[in-house]
């Protein structure tokens, strides 16, 4: 039998933490729950992480880093600024009931006032997305794709609106495809950047967001 390396074990434990947060919730979950989900002993979890708080912080940072990398990859890809803005917003939308990411975010927002670490990870994640979208909006204005007097405000409104729609979808509509809510999101992008539906489609060109299947 090949023994998994220590790093691999650590990563597996962190994966399980995210699942346990979603299934049991921050307040009620225990280190033993995580050990059980990861199929390891509680002692091994304690070997890697000194407390439940540290376990949660490490797992949330992993999820947050993945979210940032997903956006960075899109921002660095080609196409119009609008195309990249639309991809960042629309492709971050939950696509089905199995996608646990948004359940994790919903769970985490509720804890931000009770847990300083969760608060700082979530705030950092938000700032990261807003800064990235604002940068793309500035680039789009410079390239004369659209006009926007307040890129940071528009970026904040768009991420907020996407959050609101994603909550609605994740909690109440995840049995159906999210097409209708993504359509609402496109309308918001058009409203915020002063684009007609035709201009929006023309600018999107080849960098159309991947449709959920």
């Amino acid at each position, binding site marked *: 039998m090949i023994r998994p390396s220590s790093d691999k074990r650590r990563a597996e434990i962190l994966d399980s933490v995210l699942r346990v947060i*979603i*299934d*049991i*919730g921050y*307040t*009620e979950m225990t280190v033993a729950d995580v050990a059980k989900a990861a199929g390891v002993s509680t002692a091994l979890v304690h070997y890697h992480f000194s407390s439940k708080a540290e376990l949660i912080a490490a797992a949330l940072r992993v999820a947050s880093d993945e979210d940032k990398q997903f956006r960075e990859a899109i921002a660095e890809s080609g196409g119009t600024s609008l195309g990249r803005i639309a991809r960042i917003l629309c492709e971050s939308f939950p696509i089905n009931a199995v996608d646990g990411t948004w*359940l994790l975010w*919903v*769970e985490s*927002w*509720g*804890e*931000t*006032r*009770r847990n300083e670490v969760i*608060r700082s990870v*979530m*705030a950092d994640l*938000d*700032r990261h997305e807003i800064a990235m979208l604002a940068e793309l909006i500035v680039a789009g204005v410079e390239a004369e794709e659209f006009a926007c007097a307040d890129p940071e*405000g528009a970026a*904040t*409104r768009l*991420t*907020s*609106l*996407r*959050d*609101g*729609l994603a*909550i*609605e979808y*994740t*909690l*109440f509509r995840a049995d159906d495809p999210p097409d209708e*809510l993504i*359509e*609402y999101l496109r*309308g*918001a992008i058009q*409203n*915020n950047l002063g684009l007609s539906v035709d201009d929006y489609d023309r600018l999107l060109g080849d960098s159309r967001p991947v449709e959920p299947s």
Partner: protein
Amino acid sequence: MARLSPAERRQRIIDATVELARDQGLAVTTVRDVGRQMGTSGGLIHHYFESMDEVLAAAFEQAARCDLDRAVERIDGAAGPLDKLIAFIDSYGPRDADATIQLWLDAWGEAARRPALQEVSRRLNLEWQSLIRIIIEGGVAGGVFRSADPDAAAWRLLSLLDGLAIQVVAHEPLISRAQVIEWARLAASRELGVELDGPATDPGESVR
């Protein structure tokens, strides 16, 4: 406990739960906590409610419905679609905003695990959505607003306010409450082709 009717006892349980949930959070409030708060046993609570999930759902509904009722009253008192729209934006939330937003976040966090909370939060969300949709439809019918799809416009406005409320509560001081009102008004102006200028009637407070 003094001699109370079953309805009064039930109401006392809900009141005690609201108080505890505002104080310590919805998810961690247990039958035992409520019993202790009321100076009674958990058994009494189980006599009136099938499960703690039901108690929490009833408590959340009572707290959240207060805000909704207040908003309806304010909107009914406003003359014309424009003033109703402003009243909606300004009152999409209570005076003691923070506590109720936290309850909403708690309810959302628990909704995936507790069907009773999911049902209540979904129902209240739909009521808020129809409140603003009806205002928009009225404005379109009266030629005050332009909107090809009032239902979509209502979802956008509601979702924007929800997302901004999260920003305020979870990430303060990233943005202020006054900023939320200003942005919601700006979004509504663009969405409905109207001007919503002037200061918020209740600056610095109203977020759900």
